């Protein structure tokens, strides 16, 4: 093998691996990212049944209904629109009515949001960043929701530290 051929092999392998990685990344970005929406976005953008999204807002006071076998249902509101959410499983430690929540899942044909993951805000003074911004956009932000709005969000049923 000449020096030139050796270099070609090296460069060829490098480009090959990078190409594979780029393909994987592009394919994964197409399939596995999830967009964040407020209830208003959900209505305005006409998001169809089956599209996986994150829905964020406040748990509407008095809307929580517990069913059998860990099933729960509640409404998520941004002060403007609200969406009914169904979930089965253990709610995170900090899930409370009237406070911030992020639910991940999809709408079903009947317009009910079926969540498989619930993330609740992280402590008494903080609000998930996305929820805070969505509320501000709808003009329903109150300073009492917490001064440091964009700090620790969300470890929960299935989430991050």
């Amino acid at each position, binding site marked *: *093998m000449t*020096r030139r051929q*050796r270099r070609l*092999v*090296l460069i060829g*392998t*490098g480009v090959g*691996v*990078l190409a*594979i*990685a780029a393909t*994987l*990344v592009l*394919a*994964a*970005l197409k*399939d*596995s*990212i*999830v*967009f*964040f929406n407020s209830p208003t976005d959900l209505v305005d953008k006409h998001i169809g049944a089956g599209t996986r999204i*994150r829905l964020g807002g406040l748990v509407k006071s008095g809307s929580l209904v*517990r069913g059998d*076998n*860990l099933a729960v249902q509640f409404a998520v509101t941004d002060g403007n629109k609200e969406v009914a959410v169904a979930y089965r*499983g*253990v*709610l995170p*430690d*900090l899930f409370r009515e009237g406070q911030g929540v992020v639910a*991940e899942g999809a709408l079903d044909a009947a317009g009910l949001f079926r969540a498989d993951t619930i993330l609740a805000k*992280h*402590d*008494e003074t903080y609000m*998930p*960043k*996305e929820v805070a911004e969505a509320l501000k956009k709808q003009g329903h932000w109150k300073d009492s929701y917490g001064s*440091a*709005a*964009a*700090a*620790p*969000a*969300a*470890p929960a*049923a*299935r*989430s*991050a*530290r």
Partner: protein
Amino acid sequence: MIAELGHYALVLALGLALVQAVVPFWGARSRDPVLLAIAAPTAIAQFAFVGASFLALVWCHVVSDFSVLTVFENSHSAKPLIYKISGVWGNHEGSMLLWILMLALFGALVAGFGGNLPDRLKSTALAIQAWIAVAFELFVLVTSNPFTRLVPAPLEGRDLNPILQDPGLAVHPPLLYLGYVGFSITFSFAAAALIEGRIDAAWARRVRPWALTAWIFLTLGIAMGSYWAYYTLGWGGWWFWDPVENASLMPWLAGTALLHSAVVMEKRDALKIWTILLAVLAFSLSLVGTFLVRSGVLTSVHTFANDPARGVFILAILVMFIGGSFALFAWRAPLLKQGGLFAPISREGALILNNLFLITACATVFVGTLYPLALEALTGEKISVGAPFFNATFVPLFIPLLIAMSFGPLLSWKRSDLYGIAQRLVGALAVAVVGIAATFAVESGGPVVAPFGVGLALFVMIGALTDLTERAGLFRSSFGTAIRRAGGLPRSAWGTMIAHFGVGLSVLGIVGEAQWGAERIASMHPGETVSIRHYDLTFDGIVPRAGPNYRDFVGKFTVKRGGELIGIMQPSRRVYPVRAMTTTQSALMTRGMSQLYLSLGDPEPDGRTTVRLYHKPLVLLIWLGAAVMVLGGAMSLSDRRLRVGAPRPARARALAQPAE
């Protein structure tokens, strides 16, 4: 008073860092050995002052001096002493001070133990280390002063975030920072070498122990953090692809690549440009990580506060150091001569392949972590990139790396014979095939990927052992000779073998946990029994218990297997009244390398308790593997070759002089 002393010590440290940053350069320019020699003692003095400042902050926390803002915000007089101390770095200001302490520590270590380094390289590297220190000390003093006073002083503090009140906080951040700030020193060496324009095999040998030290601590820190998340979050996951975790994984991947390419540079004088680039890259990624975590652009428990001034300041530091070092690199790198020819099938070739996969994997993590931020900045769309993305990109890139890992150490330098190596690995392959078949036989109906995962893990482990038996000539000569030969092998060879074996162990743990883990969620009345994988757990009821700054509600469960009592598990829900927060304290029962994992959910209105129960087969191997990797790293670090350092070739020095 103590707080003011701490503040003052930090200002003095900044002054010393400025001296350390400027004078050695001047000395290098004017060829004044006295000015050059100032670097080492200033580095040690700077460390002493940062240390004093840090101790002052620890003191304020220990005595609960609530007139200091950070103490008020993060401490409580009733908090146990260990959390008063670890709470020092459980907040933004304190953790930045810890960051600087580590930075100064590595400078002082080089000053104190770098006796075998050439004077100019050592002093220039220390000067660059000091520039980093200047930037971050200014950052702390200007935007995040941990000693800010609060007037009037409150009587009681607001307590530390309960999630952080765990022994994990005492260990995880210091280890992690030792690792990821540790790469600052390889960065400084790389920049110094670029400035001096002398980059040779000896440089790689001198820098390798430092890179290894940082790598060892980073590995420990990441593993520790992963185990902490596993037991503390209550649902049994051990890796979340959280941006903050990715921030520590990226320097680890780049650092691992650096360790491997430095071997090629040291032994064969090749890959010089690439190795220098990796040294720059590893610390650049640490800086990116610091930016992600500390600027508040992410939402995560690690992000303690959100202050735009801080974000902009760190971004400026980031741009300055990364931009500066890459500019320096672009200017100087073309001057390097490449040496050491080799064929694609050779040890060098395998190490290049290793680097290629590690860096590509690192790039996918980088994209997945930063893409949401970039998209939000550009379009305002908010997205989340989670585990599915990383499983689809990172994992496929790691599999060929793992396969190549068994071949690499067996290949000879310069030119090798793949067929011959494959023959030596027949044993490993046979074990892997048997493992696959056995797994298929035992776990009929299980996921198809699992047996192959087990096979891959076995191949990696036996492959690592093959490297050892081949070198010792175990099956070619008498047993006694082989043992003696194995004992005489360089420790770095043992290190490689052990570390690679550890990787195999971790892979086995990951596969076991992911493929055979079982999960049950039940809502139970006292007296009821729930079963998982041959284990029967009976709920005996909930007992309240008082702690120093919390109340515990402890669930008692008796665990039986086949009717035989094997133990009691006591998970609890812990209520912290000061912050009105509840945390989940899960209970773990270890059986061999597997664990039963039990955590409590909210009590339901009808008196039932929600229980989450997991069986995690082989899960402990994940962290045991990491510990074995660390052991391998330590073994390699203790190699005499690295301790003694490169011999100083008088001839080379004489030649280098007129060239300047």
